[in-house]
């Protein structure tokens, strides 16, 4: 019998690596990869709790919706990335700053 803590530990590692990938990378696609990891960790937690804490299938439903949302997010996000690349010819995240107010330094 695998304990709940084991799943939570794996999920925590997923979450932390996702966060590190999101923060440390400057490529927009890499940031989307990090988001996928975080969404996966959340979905894993839902399913684990649904077995160990609630004993019903609501957690499964939640993780199904998370998968759906991740698919939609990936499609729209990558479309935006490709459009951005067409305009700027780079996908460095710091280049996406046209809407920012000019800082007076």
């Amino acid at each position, binding site marked *: 019998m695998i304990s709940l803590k084991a799943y939570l530990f794996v999920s925590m590692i*997923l979450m932390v690596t996702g966060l590190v990938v999101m923060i440390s990378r400057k490529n927009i696609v890499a940031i989307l990869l990090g988001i996928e990891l975080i969404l996966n960790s959340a979905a*894993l937690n839902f399913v684990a709790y649904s077995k160990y804490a609630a004993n019903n299938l609501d957690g499964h439903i939640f993780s199904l919706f998370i998968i759906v949302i991740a698919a939609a997010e990936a499609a729209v996000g990558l479309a935006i990335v490709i459009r951005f690349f067409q305009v700027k010819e780079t996908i460095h995240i710091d280049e996406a700053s046209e809407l920012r107010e000019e800082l007076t330094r």
Partner: protein
Amino acid sequence: MFANILFSVSSLLVISSCILMMWTKNLMHSCVYLLGVLIGVAGLYLTLGADFVAATQIMVYVGGVVILMLFAVMLTGGKDYQSQTQKILNLFPSMGNKYTFMWGVGVAFVFGCTLIYFFRNLFSVIKVIESDDSYTPTIERLGELLVTDHLVAFEISSVLLLGALVGAAIIARPRKERPAFIDDIVDDHHHDEEHH
């Protein structure tokens, strides 16, 4: 026993792929490691008895998201822009100086301590159900739940997917400097004004 073996293999796959994904400089390799993570998470779902979720995970992620990611990396060059945080030692990216980092560490410390205080009783609050390893099929109950209790969310997610489909198609479509439909709108507007 087999659940334990599957759990060990899957979690090892997940953790090693995660770390490699964080480590590697090559974005294409990152995507392949993401594949490893997703398959490992699907294995973890299987150990939890979530067969349908595992199959959906493999289908949506491997068949769709990973290939989309690979396409995006290839179409945009897959260049990994070196950020300063990737070199852990000189930890000063462009988003702050050392004072902001000091403040950040302080706030993170306080916040983390608060969280630990709140969640210290997590495992005593959650009454863990000691279920046996017997496996029950989930599909029929999932189907019933999706069209009864979670019907609204189900319908909304279909609308979301339709929106994402149309939106992605429109956004990624190559176009001229000024899209044609703006001209049409402007023309219609002039036309209306002449009528009035």
